[in-house]
């Protein structure tokens, strides 16, 4: 669902402990201390100090994603993201990356339906350079962006789509699934990567209008984290971002609730050897009741080898090659997806039957306390993982920005984890009963096209 500008990326992240590492009394409380302020132009700024590694990361979230796109212009928010690296009023085309690589820095950006995020991670001596580059494109992108760079990045993005959708096994499935889950006109109906013809249609005038409408500092949150002196960092942020002009107010995106009344089925073909089944439901938005429960449901069903569906489908019956389940949390509505690939000689119908048996079992009886404990411990460990890295997507600074953007509290780590720690087995059963009904959902089958080509 997230599409990013370049494949060179870091995954994973980091965490600080109130009261110091290795505290011996009770479980440590997850916390990332911060200070925050808002510039007169509306830019919200969060500073987080951590000297364990001499690097700083500058992370920006703009509250605009592919959900804001207009019909006929799908893929535009992500195409625009690419243009943010092509130079700005005081940075020549190509210089953005040259300057950062010259100081040992690293950067990237990504787009999803809800937001677009950017980060620059540099050794701490280059904080000023990172702030200069980030503020210059926030304030002065349109002074530099050209029709030529739009055309090249349009080709790059089309190749991104070819590589990760059209030429990738099962690559089209998630796009079709969203089209089925969310009705025509819903902001999640179309893919973030966009349709080819819409990418072709995007114009230079679209770029100008989009920037002016959505890329104002008042529609963004900036996190500066790492080896900083907060007083100095604040002064440098005020210096570099103070002259960025405010943009128009951007009201929150909204959409009517999506309710499925029946089972919708579709089958598509692909250049693959084995058929794959997707079952999906529209579920509660991120951080609303039901969201954490469904993360646990996903873990109980298909989180690792001790999960119910792995045990039955892959291990015991050996009718599936793999199975996965996840709650894909988002601002307007989430989706819960179960995916399984059939072994040679087995039909998707066999897989569907077993999946339905296991869902029904969870509707009838709560999971064992041990299963819940296992899920919550696994989720807790994922928080530690995220806290370990400062920069990058999903690193500590990025997570603080996600929290700031979505909850208003950049240090929401303990509250977030707490959502899982308070759950009882009965809550998990209730979530399956409420949100994963057997008779109202989307079912997508991907089946092998005519056997052909380099696959054999």
């Amino acid at each position, binding site marked *: 669902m997230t599409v990013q500008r370049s494949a060179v990326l870091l995954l994973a992240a980091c965490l600080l402990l109130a009261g110091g590492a290795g505290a011996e009394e009770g479980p440590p409380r997850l916390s990332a201390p911060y200070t925050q302020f808002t510039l007169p132009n509306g830019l919200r700024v969060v500073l987080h100090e951590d000297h364990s590694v*001499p690097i700083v990361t500058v992370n920006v979230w703009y509250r605009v994603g592919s959900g804001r796109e207009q019909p006929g212009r799908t893929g535009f928010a992500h195409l625009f993201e690419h243009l943010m690296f092509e130079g700005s009023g005081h940075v020549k085309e190509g210089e953005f990356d040259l300057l950062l690589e010259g100081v040992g820095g*690293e950067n990237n950006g990504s787009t999803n339906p809800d937001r677009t995020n950017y980060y620059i991670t540099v050794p701490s*001596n280059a904080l000023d350079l990172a702030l200069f580059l980030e503020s210059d494109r926030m304030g002065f992108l349109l002074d530099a962006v050209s029709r030529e760079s739009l*055309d*090249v990045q349009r080709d790059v993005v089309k190749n991104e789509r070819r590589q990760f959708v059209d030429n990738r096994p099962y690559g089209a499935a998630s796009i079709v699934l969203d089209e089925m889950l969310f009705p025509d006109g819903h902001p999640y109906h179309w893919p973030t990567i966009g349709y080819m013809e819409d990418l072709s249609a995007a114009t230079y005038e679209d770029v100008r209008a989009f920037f002016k409408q959505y890329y104002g500092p008042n529609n963004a949150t900036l996190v500066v984290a790492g080896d900083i002196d907060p007083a100095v960092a604040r002064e440098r942020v*005020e210096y570099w971002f103070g*002259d960025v002009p405010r943009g128009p107010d951007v009201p929150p995106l909204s959409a009517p609730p999506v309710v499925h009344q029946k089972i919708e089925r579709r089958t598509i073909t692909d250049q693959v050897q084995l058929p794959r089944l997707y079952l999906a439901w529209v579920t509660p938005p991120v951080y609303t009741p039901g969201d954490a429960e469904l993360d646990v449901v996903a873990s109980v069903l298909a989180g690792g080898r001790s999960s119910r569906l792995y045990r039955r489908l892959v291990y015991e019956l050996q009718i599936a090659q793999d199975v996965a389940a996840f709650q894909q949390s988002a601002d307007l509505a989430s989706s819960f997806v179960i995916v399984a690939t059939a072994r040679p000689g087995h039909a998707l119908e066999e897989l569907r039957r077993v999946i339905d048996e296991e869902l029904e079992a969870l509707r009838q009886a709560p999971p064992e306390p041990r299963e819940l404990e296992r899920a919550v411990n696994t989720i807790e460990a994922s928080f530690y993982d995220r806290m370990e890295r400062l920069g990058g997507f999903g690193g500590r600074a990025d997570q603080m920005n996600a929290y700031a953007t979505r909850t208003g509290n950049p240090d929401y780590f303990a509250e977030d984890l707490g959502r899982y720690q308070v759950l009882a087995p009965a809550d998990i059963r209730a979530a399956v009963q409420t949100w994963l009904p057997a008779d109202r959902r989307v079912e997508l089958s991907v089946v092998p096209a005519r056997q052909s080509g380099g696959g054999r």
Partner: protein
Amino acid sequence: MRRITLVLLACLAAGPGTGLHGQSRPDRSRAPEPGPAPELRLPEVQTARLSNGLPVHVVEMHEVPVVEIALVLDAGAAQDPAGKFGLASLTAAMLDEGAAGRPALTIAEEVALLGATLRTGSSYDASFVRLGVPVARLDRALPIMADVVLRPDFPADELERVRKEWLTDMLQARDDPGWVASRAFARLLFGDAHRYGTDERGTPTSLTVLTDADVRDFHRTHYQPSRAALIVAGDIRRDAVVAQLEKAFGSWKPSANAPERRDVPMPEPPQARRIVLIDRPGSAQSQVRIGWVGVPRTTPDYFPLIVLNTVLGGSFTSRLNTNLREVHGYAYGAFSQFQMRRGAGPFVAAAGVQTDKTAEALREFFNELTAIRDPIPGDEFARAQRNIALGFGAGFETTGDMVDRLQHRIVYGLPEDVYSQYVPNVLAVRPSDAHRVAAERLDPARFLVVVVGDRASIEAPVRALGLGPVTVVEPGPLLE
């Protein structure tokens, strides 16, 4: 209008105590120069030995209450006997399929209950077992890790299940044109007898002949404390963790004479350029692999080569990515890499390029692969050096990073000061060194080119390029 607004906002931004800079517009006339680079602070690596001689390397990192432990074994895929390719990988994969009487799923369940991850696997150069766990639960996780390493049961029915899973996996991998291109490239370059010509996990053919007796035998002979090392990074104290490790691994005794390490031979590099085309009808992109035999990790030219490759295809602003992506838009990205192993792995330049620009993309690849043999302009060279040197410290941030770095040092037998000397060594490379190694290590006239794509669209334009002889091959035999 905007200008006036800007000045006003800038004044507003200067609240009390915000200092001089807040009151004036920032100087954007040129990019700010960075200050002096921060000192690279590598944490101390503490060492110990267990009573059986097993070496332990410990790095204390107290930011997050987790610990990462690797047991590294000199038992990689390069140790596979002829005809039994995949044995090292299968042995590693079977470790957690039943151990000390615990069934496979019980092990998985106990590990997950602790919020831990336990992974096993093999590269060409080593096998490893890796545990990540919140430090409070290390005591409960370590015995499971020790059982998996020391007391695997290798149940025959689990072996059959894993074999079927892998065979299906190998079938599925053929759906992925990038995978097909990489496997075909390696096979055509190294041949079917050389270990690097075949995936670490072997092929459907070799996998079929492996037995549980083979796996037991490989484990007995290759999993030895004298051929292993433990690496620990995390929120622990050395003495305490060494005591825990002694309890878990101290009783591990050699069970046989360790076999001599097999070294892979240096293959003959190709004599002339050739282009091998694999048809994948309807492909939206062509997957391209270009290169030949590279160098081992212990090459004395390591530092000149990594600077050279950073310029060529090892960074976002590299020549290949700039040309194929940023200038021409033929690809989402293009890169190159010397895959350095104990033996000489491949040098490969790679991209997925749009079908109707395949020939143009190949031409640009060769333009860059040829031009890199000319002297590199000083500013470009210095930027690549700074990119590597100044970014080096960020690679030691997490417990996982730290274990990766130490594992690399140990597997390749690199000196203990390899990381503390890394930056000076990068900065010591002269342009003439890079020029020399480019001439010695890159000969585009002899490169192998593999293209997996829509033959009907690309064959004629690729032939018309005149890069060299073009042959169209069936992928099947190259993947078996």
